[in-house]
């Protein structure tokens, strides 16, 4: 049944019309007001540049170290706001190519050394030559600008530097009757076996889980076995036919098979060994300053339990590995000048010192290296290691692939699945190296 439409009285209709007109007016005023307000807000937003900043790693440490530095920067530059991006190293390695390709990379970020070449060669980072001032050039230790130069352009400013040293437990050395750190490969093995025999604790910790860490450790044995850097710039690949290349692997395997090394090396990576050293469950291990946060307590005092020494020499001499991570500005940033301002602020000596202190890295600036907080004996060993170290990172756009296949083949040797010669031949074949 249809309900007849009721006709409203004229007064009511007028009232409704008036109400509708008022509502329309209110909407119009609201829209115009909101537009004006929005325009005002936009104008504010335009005057303030927001930069995204990322230092991969544990975010609590990032905040502890960088919040005060960034607060000071924002105070000095009222037109620039800085947003922190929280990302661990693992996530960073996985997401960086995607972020770069989608243009979502933070405006200023720390980049791992291998990535400098891998992505720098693809023009993913801003060339910084035009920004770098003489003061900064003088501040940086020699070679660090070159380490971040790709295709003739500086694309990164070194800020987190590491080198391998031999960390050892003085208490276990004493129990085993050892009075000084090992000087050669042969001593390294005999020390490891002596510690095991005298204390029951494996003398040396080795790791064989594939990954960049294993590539680093092989690089140390390669450097000391061959006497040259892992990456041969002339050949544009690793010289796997160099006599010391196979010898380095053979010696690593000999160590793994000796009673002086902890069993099941394939189940350990470098971070796992750090806790073993801290807890006195191994006597020695190779690592850079990245271990410092784990063994801080054992390094303190006049007679520290854990000490650092130069890496033992091999047939090719004594050569550590060096790793230089650097601040970069992705090429797609919309605010290159502001991003540089922030980057420059981050590498002021006081801020660089805070960064090095927070993460235990070797100061890349000589002025910082002279500060009192970097005068502990282990820091002196780390700085000395830089002098004879070669870069362990390969300078190729195929960085990811090399760091996948190289450790895999090293592991094959260490767990007895291939001879050193076979593994190196396979690696050359996989990579297409002659």
């Amino acid at each position, binding site marked *: 049944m249809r309900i007849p439409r009721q006709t409203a009285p004229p007064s009511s209709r007028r009232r409704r019309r008036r109400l509708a007109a008022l509502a329309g007016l209110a909407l119009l005023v609201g829209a115009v007001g909101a537009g004006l307000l929005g325009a005002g807000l936009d104008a504010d937003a335009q005057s303030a540049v927001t930069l995204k900043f990322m230092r991969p790693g544990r975010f609590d440490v990032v905040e502890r170290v960088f919040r005060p530095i960034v607060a000071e920067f924002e105070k000095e530059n009222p037109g620039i706001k800085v947003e922190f991006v929280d990302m661990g190293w693992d996530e960073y390695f*996985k997401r960086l*190519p*995607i972020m*770069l*390709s989608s243009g979502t990379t933070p405006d200023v970020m720390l980049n791992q050394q291998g990535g400098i070449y891998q*992505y720098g060669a*693809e023009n*993913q980072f801003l060339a910084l030559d035009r920004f770098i001032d003489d003061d900064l050039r003088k501040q940086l230790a020699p070679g660090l600008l070159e380490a971040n130069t790709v295709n003739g352009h500086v694309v990164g400013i070194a800020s987190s530097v590491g080198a391998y040293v031999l960390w050892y437990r003085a208490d276990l050395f004493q129990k085993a009757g050892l009075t000084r750190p090992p000087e050669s490969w042969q001593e390294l093995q005999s020390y490891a076996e002596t510690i095991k025999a005298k204390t029951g604790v494996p003398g040396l910790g080795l790791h*064989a*889980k*594939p*990954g960049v860490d294993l590539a680093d450790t092989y690089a140390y044995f390669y450097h000391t076995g061959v006497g040259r850097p892992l990456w041969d710039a002339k050949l544009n690949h690793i010289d796997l036919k160099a006599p010391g290349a196979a010898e380095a692997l053979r010696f690593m395997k000999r160590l793994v098979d000796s009673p002086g090394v*902890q*069993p*099941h090396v*394939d*189940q350990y990576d470098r971070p796992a060994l750090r806790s*073993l050293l801290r807890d006195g*469950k191994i006597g020695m291990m190779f690592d850079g300053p990245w271990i410092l946060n784990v063994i801080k307590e054992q390094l303190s005092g006049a007679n520290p339990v854990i000490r650092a020494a130069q890496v033992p020499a091999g047939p090719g001499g004594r050569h550590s590995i060096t790793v230089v991570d650097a601040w970069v500005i992705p090429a797609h940033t919309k605010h290159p000048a502001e991003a540089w301002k922030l980057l420059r602020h981050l590498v002021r000596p006081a801020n660089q010192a805070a960064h090095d202190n927070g993460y235990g890295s070797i100061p890349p600036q000589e002025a910082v290296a002279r500060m009192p907080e970097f005068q502990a004996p282990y820091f002196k060993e780390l700085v000395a290691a830089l002098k004879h170290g070669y870069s362990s990172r390969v300078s190729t756009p*195929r960085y*990811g*692939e090399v*760091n*996948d296949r190289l450790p*895999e083949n090293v*592991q*094959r040797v260490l*767990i007895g*699945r291939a001879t050193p010669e076979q593994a190196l031949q396979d690696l050359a074949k996989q990579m297409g190296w002659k």
Partner: protein
Amino acid sequence: VTPGAAGPPRGVAARSGRLQDRLAVVAYLAPTLVLIALIYVAPIVDNVRFSFARVTLLRGVVQWTGFDNYERLADPDVLAALGRTLVWVGVSLPVALVFGTALALLLDDRIPGRAVLRTLIILPWVFPEAIFAVMWRLTLHPLWGLANNLLLQAGAIQESINFLSVDSALPTVIGIRIWRSTPFVVLSVLAGLQSIPEELMQASHVDGASLWQRIWHIKLPLLKPVVWATAVILSAWTLVIFDLIFILTEGGPDRATELLSLLIYKYAFVRQDLGMASAASMILVGLVGILGYFYVRAASREEAR
């Protein structure tokens, strides 16, 4: 419409109504269909496109290479990974099915502590895959793992065991997968058991059927469609599993646990060879597609009954 009133013939009106109904159905479904196309179909189309090209994450399609990537699928690494994947599914699936069905049949009976047992059995399914994998990694570690420490303390072993060594890693992860997937089978079969008519079971009692006869001749035949659907779903899931293996072994040692899903990840994100990753993905797409076909067919047959 008043009978005899002027208007279109009855058949035409009915056809027009049906057409309108269909259009309305399409209109209602259109937003969902568009979403599905965007979320599911577009990536598959992209994957097919990429499989015929050299693609990097940074530069996108660099060069069209025809069937080169597919020819590279004959690489021993890919074939070995495919073989491992088939072993991974081929062993874990039947064991989980048999074990899960047996447990479900047991839990269907009124045994003491049934509720507690059901909860315990379902627990592995409740944990997120990543947490589950980390838990196992810690449990199996040769030095600080619970498994080795318990065995050492009990005197069962003199030296710690490497459960994830090159020889034992694949059997170990398959065992963990079985443990993980069994609760799903238990849940599915228990749901299937609920649908068996009570009268049928009572009648079998009256007829004097033994427990074994009831299971073998009544329950299992009636559970066949449920078990079949569970098997198809579980095998599709198992085929594409990535996180469990990635966290536990990263495919090692010496690739002993490198399944096709892990190799695809390596191609795409480590070696930056998206073209090859896409071509290798097509193998999984094909296998899951075949399983999907069987699943849909089984479901249709069940519906037809």
